[in-house]
């Protein structure tokens, strides 16, 4: 087989991969209109390929990926559910792709209608009163929420410096709070895997602006004390923030608003089935209770006399967190999903995602360690502590799964579980797939005892084996250079 090459090593000068129209106007002398020092003479390091070369190159690359459409992808906290094909078709209508954000309102009523209806649906699902769709991903939503929290307190001349997060929280939580200038403090997890109320009471005071919480939390467990938590937080005048990463488990079952949350972010690319795209685009809309609407980014979308309009008159708005209105193309798919499923369908997502996770938990809790003896919600966290005694770690198990065609679970997270393997099957996986996964996990546990080398060297059949990450970090090679 031909040695694998980068796109820059392919092609030949003179080729081109698109046919462009000829210039249909009289050409002028560019140098008469552009000072010489501004003119770029050539982009000589760009490759020159024809269309087939480009297609073949990237098609071959695609074959080196695992994806939902090709493999079971039980990646905890990421909700890798099936991405319905009809959504891709809908989102590609030219009435959605070929519209400019600054067209007059009259000419984009359909786009505004989509956002408006999605907002209505998300308000119903979460119990919030108003949403912004500007945040482009979950972490961006968190950051937006922190800006809102900050402004809310400053507006009251109540200068609060701290944000609390559980020690099981996603890394983005403390990072987002820090980017907004807050000091982050961690609250401990109790023996049942929930937030430790005693520790929370000790750490909360009137310098705390907000507690950021994921529910179900990152251990896949419902915060049973959520009503006590909201009481403790609100009594000190602080706000309660809902990280929507795990909303899948609660669709149609319970609303964050009813639990006392004041501000939520959702991940449309998790709960609402929009594709992850190999790392994005996502969408992280932020919803708030009545009291916080005045702080949302502009514009909001309102309905006046049957017409959808932009509303820029938001008195205490934080401003904007990106240009225009957000990842609109993603919103179309999320709304199509909700409209297609309806109320009953959404509830069934929660039912079956929780059923699937518990089914796996029940079958594997004797083979692997499980720190908390409770039913889980939509995901479970196992620990490879038993295997660790034999010199096998979570990474080895995860990599061995690849040999069986299964994408590794999330590893070493949450940080409070040693050798963690965080498994989220999602509702779209069949019992047959789960049974296969369970059998493989049992088999790997046996391999760990009898043939540990097999695991240390896994995966065996992939395009590349385990990569040298130390070399990657020590000798950064982050781009191609000509002649190298």
């Amino acid at each position, binding site marked *: 087989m031909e040695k694998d090459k980068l796109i820059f090593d392919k092609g030949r000068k003179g080729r081109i991969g698109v046919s462009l129209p000829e210039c249909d106007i009289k050409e002028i002398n560019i140098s008469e209109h552009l000072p010489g*020092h501004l003119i770029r003479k050539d982009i000589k390091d760009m490759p020159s390929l024809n269309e087939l070369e480009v297609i073949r190159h990237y098609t071959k690359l695609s074959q080196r990926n695992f994806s939902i459409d090709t493999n079971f992808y039980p990646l905890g906290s990421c909700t890798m559910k099936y991405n319905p094909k009809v959504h891709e078709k809908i989102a590609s209508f030219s009435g959605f792709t070929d519209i400019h954000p600054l067209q007059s309102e009259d000419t984009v009523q359909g786009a505004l209608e989509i956002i408006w209806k999605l907002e209505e649906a998300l308000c119903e699902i979460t119990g919030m009163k108003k949403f912004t769709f500007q945040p*482009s991903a979950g972490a961006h939503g968190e950051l937006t929420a922190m800006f809102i929290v900050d402004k809310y307190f400053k507006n009251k001349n109540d200068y609060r410096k701290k944000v609390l997060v559980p020690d099981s929280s996603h890394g983005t939580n403390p990072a987002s709070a820090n980017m907004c200038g807050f000091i982050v403090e961690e609250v401990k997890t109790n023996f049942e895997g929930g937030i430790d109320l005693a520790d929370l009471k000790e750490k909360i005071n009137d310098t705390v602006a907000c507690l950021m919480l994921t529910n179900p939390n990152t251990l896949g467990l419902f915060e049973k004390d959520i009503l006590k938590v909201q009481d403790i937080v609100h009594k000190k005048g602080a706000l309660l923030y809902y990280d929507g990463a795990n909303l899948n488990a609660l669709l149609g079952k319970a609303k964050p608003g009813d639990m006392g949350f004041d501000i939520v972010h959702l991940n449309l690319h998790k709960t609402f089935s929009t594709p992850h795209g190999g790392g994005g685009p996502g969408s992280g809309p932020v919803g708030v209770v009545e009291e916080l609407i005045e702080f949302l980014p502009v514009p909001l979308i309102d309905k006046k006399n049957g017409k959808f309009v932009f509303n820029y008159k938001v008195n205490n708005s934080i401003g904007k967190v990106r240009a225009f209105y957000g990842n609109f193309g993603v919103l179309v798919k999320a709304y199509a999903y909700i409209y297609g499923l309806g109320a009953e369908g959404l509830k069934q997502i929660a039912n079956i995602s929780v059923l699937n996770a518990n089914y796996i938990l029940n079958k594997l809790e004797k083979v692997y360690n499980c720190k908390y003896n409770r039913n889980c919600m939509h995901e479970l966290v196992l620990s490879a502590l038993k295997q660790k005694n034999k010199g096998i770690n979570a990474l080895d198990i995860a990599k061995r799964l690849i040999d069986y065609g299964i994408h590794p679970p999330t590893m070493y997270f949450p940080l409070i579980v040693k050798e963690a393997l965080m498994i989220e099957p999602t509702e779209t996986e069949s019992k047959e797939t789960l049974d296969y996964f369970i059998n493989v996990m049992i088999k790997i546990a046996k391999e760990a005892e009898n043939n540990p080398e097999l695991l240390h060297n896994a995966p065996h059949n992939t395009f590349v084996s385990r990569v040298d990450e130390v070399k990657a970090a020590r000798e950064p090679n982050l781009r191609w250079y000509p002649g190298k």
Partner: protein
Amino acid sequence: MNYIPHTEEQIKEMLKSIGVSDLKELFNDVPDNIRLNENLNLGQSHSELELLKLFNNISKKNYNTEELVSFKGGGCYDHFVPSAIDYLANRAEFYTAYTPYQPEVSQGTLQAIYEYQTFICILTGMDITNASLYDGASAVSEAVLMANRINSKRKVLVSKTVHPDYITTLSTYLVSLDLKLNVIPDKQYVTDIDELSKKIDQDTFAIVLQIPNFFGYIEDVEKIKKILIDKKVLLIICVDPISLGLINSPAYYKADIVVGDGQSLGNYQSFGGPTFGFLATKNTWLRNLPGRIVGKTVDKKGRDAFTLTIQTREQHIRRHRATSNICSNQSLNAFRAAVYCSLLGREGFRKIAKLCFLKSHYLAKKINELDKFSVFFDSPFFKEFVVETNMDIKKINDILLKENIIGGIELGSYYPAFDNHMLIAVTEKRTKEEMDKLVYIFKNID
């Protein structure tokens, strides 16, 4: 619709295996008083056929630039998107994959993003870049935060000619951090360099300029270079990547960080998103970069391999001490940019840039010949320019719309002082006929 494969029998079997009597019991941890007893008010489910019908109807309420002729730009452009991009980006192996944290099963995405990073470096003339950011506005904001990690002074200067949404976004990002943002006024659609020069002081850590700027004009880079000699401030330049096919890269005028929005590289306008943001800089500042980075290394057997790297900057490792909170970026849009650059290549990229330049100058000249309109020509421009008139721009745009033309941006909506000013963008897609029609309508407006 229903995407759940379970039969009733299987559900029963699974419940039995778990040891619970029904699905409800699995939710026992949810307190009774917050558990919903009734269905959400979201109506019934719909079939695929109904779904397609509804969304087709909604989409038709939008006037789209496939059927109409558009002269709108301002950070989002009607460039041509080659079919091969859709074909490749719609391969499920790319779009249904997660972030490539597991390199053994993500070499496709990883290599493609490594190639994307190279394309951005080639275009901008910089050494390194990351795997993408959300959009141009957030890229400007991240660049300023990055500059402040390098130089910890408190003040950043931003030209008023930078995209107004980008300035608003930046001020949102900075307001909680006790950093000062000063906006430098413009003088005839370009940055007032004397004013800029005066404002640079001991407290300044960075300057943000956009080239071509929001009005389409190219800032006086020679003058800027001069005033920055011996000044310890970082120069952040926001660019339209397409312009780099014809205009010198910001490395030429000594930019420290180059950012921009990548919509024009093979991404649809899509009502403003999803696009992607890019941020490129010098090798020296690698550890200060926000976001994911793909690097090349080897596998256990010594074969070339790609992986996410220098991750100790990132939130999942460093938590609150990370360089940024960004996790998901705009990977698939960056991928589209890589395919776009591959297809156009050395010749095509230049040709597109040249077409934009030539056509915009053709239209500008024609409009300038009209009695009631004038075009600002005193600074060079690339594909966008400002038209001044005494007439109401909104009225003009209404007339154009009746003729199936989406007119330029009404600058008055961003700057009250620029009422009666229209910002017109011309891409390679505009034909002579379309431009002549616009001029004809302008000419005949009363």
